[in-house]
């Protein structure tokens, strides 16, 4: 693996960390029950994961 590839991986990782941290902070900052709209948004996201619509949630066969 080249240095450039490692650097790209590192950048990708850093971006993911920041993105997740912001989302988690947003989720935990709310001290009230969800509204119907908030429930619907989350449930739609969960449905996508359950049905494998989100590509990274789909179980793929192991490479031979």
């Amino acid at each position: 693996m080249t240095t450039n590839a490692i650097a790209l991986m590192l950048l990708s990782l850093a971006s993911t960390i920041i993105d997740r941290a912001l989302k988690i902070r947003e989720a935990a900052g709310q001290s009230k029950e969800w509204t119907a709209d908030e429930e619907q948004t989350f449930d739609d996201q969960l449905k996508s994961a359950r049905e494998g619509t989100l590509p990274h949630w789909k179980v793929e066969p192991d490479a031979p």
Partner: protein
Amino acid sequence: MKRTLALFIALWLALGAGISTVIVQSTGCAMVQPGNSALVVRAEQTAKISFTLIDGFLAYEKAHRDELLKLSPDIKKSADALRVEAPKAIEALRVATKAYKSNRTPANEVTLSTWLAVVDALSARVGELTLKTKAINV
């Protein structure tokens, strides 16, 4: 190279788990709006935080699968197990949360607390993966 990759993964997972733990603990005593249930608020936060953590791990695993398979095939197996189990468990937590919101009986509270524990355990599994990844590369 393997050590570097393992360090990246460990860092990401540890940071994710650490952030969620700190936030969940720090908001555990936060004021809940009048009329709202602390248990419901916690259940909804847990659903979202667990989903976000697992979603991030699965996205990273898919994006770097080739490199990770060289480290250990167990990482993909663990990720696939999460892909199957997590949506079902979080869905069950959502159903239990809605049931308790509409009818706050002791029985519904027990069911909700049970699914809350199951989903908490899923988040903890992401932390265990960190240790496993580190152990492989020691």
